[in-house]
Structures are given as structure tokens and as C-alpha cells.
């Protein structure tokens, strides 16, 4: 009963935060509400027994997305024409509200009338011994549904390429994103010194622990990316040049090694199949390189396209 009270309260908070993010007048307020919303959703995933998802949501939804949105907002609002006066609800808004209500109700109805659940828990548990990972989610991500993960790491790269194409010609090859300046020895610089060692520890721990308990390449990689972003925002490091060979190698090494192992699997039997005997260390190796690539790619996604360097 108390559990339901908790769940109900959390659902109401989630809906309030989402509603404010959608209906709020100020764009900045909407962004802050969206960050809050990410934190609440991470808690909701815990209540649904999905600790792995909660980790990803906490790192991405509550962490990286907020940085992306705030940075983008700061750069857009400086260039924007004066806000227009808001008008009362017109016919289009009402029609949209009605249509959204109907669609949401239809989805809710479909959810309520779903047939009896036939989960894949047992199938996964039966094959877990051969998967090379004790954490079933990691086993699914890297072995049973390795396709998803392989293509996803390539989607990340494609998004980064898309962002890089937005660079102006004269800036191409330069450092990604703006150059951050901070007062040496200031609060931000000090914070940027203290956080990274702990963050590195936590990120690597999540990858390492991910084969047995919740965690894994995505969660660990996101934490590592966040730590790198903090270091650069604190002005302690500069973002790499997009033409840097080491950077480009780090971006692709994960997908390339994953793909190479998948092709090598053809010799052992089929594409993307890890032989059970070797699955353990193979998955750990793939996770290690994927973590590196994911961390670097996510951080570069946040930094944005290269910009002209400031004259000192």
C-alpha cells in the first residue's frame, strides 16, 4: 500500500515536471524542468526493477542532456528576435490538445488490455551460462542482441559526423566546441581537479562490475564522458582537434573491434556469435573498447562542431 503511495506520488511529480517542461512559458524554465524530469524518471526505473536503465537514465537524462540543452539555449537566445506575446488558445491548440488526449487514451487502453505477459526472462536465464556475462542485461546487450549495440555505436558516430558537418569551413580541423576559460585556482577550476579522479574510478567500476551486476559500457562510458566534459568546462584541458588522428582512432576503435569480432564469429559458426568458451573475455574486451569509443563520442557530441579559435 505504501509502495503504491510512493509510486503514485512519483508519477504525479513526473507528470508535473513533464507538464512544466511542455507548458512552461520560459524556455530556460522548461529546460530546468526537463533536467529534473530526468532525475525522477531514473527513480521510476528503479521501481520497475530496471537498475541498468536507471543508471543509463541518471547518467544521460539527468547529466549529459542537461549540459547539451543549457549550452544550446545560451547560444540560441543571444541571437533570437524578441519573444512574441502569447495569445490565448486558438482552434489549432485545442484540436492538438484533443488529438493528443485521444492518442494518449488509446495507448493507455492498449496498455490496460495487453495479453498476459510472456517475458523472455527464462530464455535469457537458460542461456546465461554461455553468454559470458552474469548480468542478464549485459548478456543481452553484447551477446544475444549484439546487433543492436553494434549498430547503436555506429549511430552515435553518424550523429557526430552530422554535427561536424555543421562546422564552418575556416573552423574545420580545429578544436571541438568553444574554448572554455576559467580563473586559475577558482572554485570551478578546483572542482574540476577534484572530481575527475573519483569520476574515473566510478566510470571504470561501472564497466567492470557490469558483467555481474547493473552497469556496463554505456553507463560507464557516459560517466567518463561527463568527467571529461567537466574537466574541459573547468578550463583545465582543451577539447581535442577534430582532425586529431588519436581522437579519430578512439572514436572508431569500439565499433571496429566489435565488427571484427562479429566477422571472426563467422569462422566459429555465425556472424556476431561468441563461442561460449571464450565469451567471457571477448565480451570484456569489446566492452573495454566500446566504453572508450562511447565516452569519446558522447563527449564530442556535447562539445559540438569545431569553432574558430579565439585570439588570445
Amino acid at each position, binding site marked *: 500500500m505504501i509502495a503504491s503511495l510512493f509510486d503514485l506520488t512519483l508519477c504525479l511529480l513526473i507528470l508535473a515536471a513533464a507538464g512544466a517542461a511542455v507548458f512552461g512559458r520560459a524556455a530556460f524554465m522548461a529546460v530546468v524542468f526537463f533536467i529534473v524530469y530526468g532525475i525522477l524518471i531514473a527513480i521510476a526505473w528503479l521501481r520497475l526493477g530496471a537498475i541498468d536503465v536507471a543508471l543509463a537514465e541518471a547518467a544521460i537524462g539527468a547529466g549529459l542532456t542537461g549540459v547539451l540543452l543549457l549550452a544550446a539555449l545560451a547560444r540560441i*537566445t543571444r541571437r533570437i528576435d524578441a519573444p512574441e506575446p502569447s495569445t490565448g488558445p486558438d482552434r489549432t491548440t485545442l484540436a492538438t490538445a484533443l488529438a493528443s488526449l485521444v492518442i494518449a487514451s488509446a495507448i493507455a487502453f492498449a496498455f490496460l488490455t495487453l495479453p498476459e505477459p510472456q517475458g523472455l526472462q527464462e530464455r535469457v536465464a537458460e542461456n546465461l551460462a554461455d553468454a559470458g556475462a552474469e548480468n542478464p542485461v549485459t548478456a543481452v546487450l553484447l551477446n544475444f542482441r549484439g546487433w543492436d549495440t553494434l549498430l547503436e555505436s555506429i549511430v552515435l558516430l553518424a550523429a557526430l559526423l552530422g554535427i561536424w558537418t555543421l562546422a564552418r569551413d575556416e573552423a574545420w580541423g580545429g578544436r571541438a566546441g568553444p574554448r572554455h576559460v576559467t580563473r586559475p585556482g577558482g*572554485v570551478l577550476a578546483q572542482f574540476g581537479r577534484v*572530481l575527475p579522479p*573519483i569520476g574515473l574510478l566510478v566510470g571504470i567500476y561501472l564497466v567492470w562490475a557490469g558483467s555481474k551486476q547493473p552497469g556496463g559500457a554505456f553507463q560507464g562510458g557516459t560517466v567518463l564522458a561527463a568527467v571529461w566534459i567537466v574537466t574541459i568546462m573547468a578550463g583545465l584541458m582543451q577539447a581535442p582537434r577534430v582532425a586529431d588522428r588519436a581522437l579519430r582512432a578512439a572514436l572508431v576503435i569500439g565499433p571496429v573491434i566489435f565488427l571484427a569480432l562479429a566477422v571472426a564469429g563467422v569462422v566459429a559458426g555465425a556472424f556476431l556469435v561468441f563461442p561460449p568458451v571464450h565469451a567471457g573475455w571477448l565480451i570484456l574486451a569489446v566492452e573495454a573498447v566500446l566504453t572508450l569509443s562511447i565516452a569519446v563520442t558522447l563527449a564530442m557530441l556535447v562539445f559540438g562542431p569545431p569553432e574558430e579559435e579565439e585570439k588570445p
Partner: protein
Amino acid sequence: MSDLFTIVMTASGLVFFAAGTLGLIRFPDTHSRLHALTKADNLGLGLIALGLAVQVPGLADLFKLVLIWALAILAAGATAQLVARIAAPADLGEEPQSPPDETGDGETRRT
């Protein structure tokens, strides 16, 4: 016995969180609201972590609890400093004992 300790500690933790939120809602200006947040909340989190410290199964979890609290304090300390510096100086007028704002130029109001 340890359960009693946990109950007392976590309950007082919630009290501090409630106090922090009350301050956040009731205090009149940005800078005093910052006080409410950073102090009461992290004390509340610390008390809850302390109360749970006697319940965790392993040493690693105990270490995590300590790390969580340390990180929360670190984050709150750094961000409160930074946000206070850019908070609109109009708030400072009502609060004479506050340190002079080094950088505030009201830009927060712009958007």
C-alpha cells in the same frame, strides 16, 4: 537496536530535507534560499546515509555511502558558490551582511 538507530537517523534526515524545502519556498531572496538548500539538504542526506550505514551488507556498500555523501557535499559547495556569484545583485540590496558580489551584473535576468 541498529534498526532503532536507523529509524531515528533517517527520520531526522527527512526533517532536514523538509526544513531545506521550507526555506527554499519561504525565504525571500535568492541568496538566502541558497543557504537553505546547500546546508539543510546535505545534512539530511548525510543523516540518511548514516542511518543506512548500519544496514548495508558489505564494506563496499558502506564505502559507496560515504562516497555518495562526499560527492553531494562537493557538488553542493562548488555549485552554490558559482550560482551565488551570478545571482542577480538586486537580491543583495535587501541583505546588507552578504559579501559584495564580485561579478554580478544582472545578466541572469537577461534571456
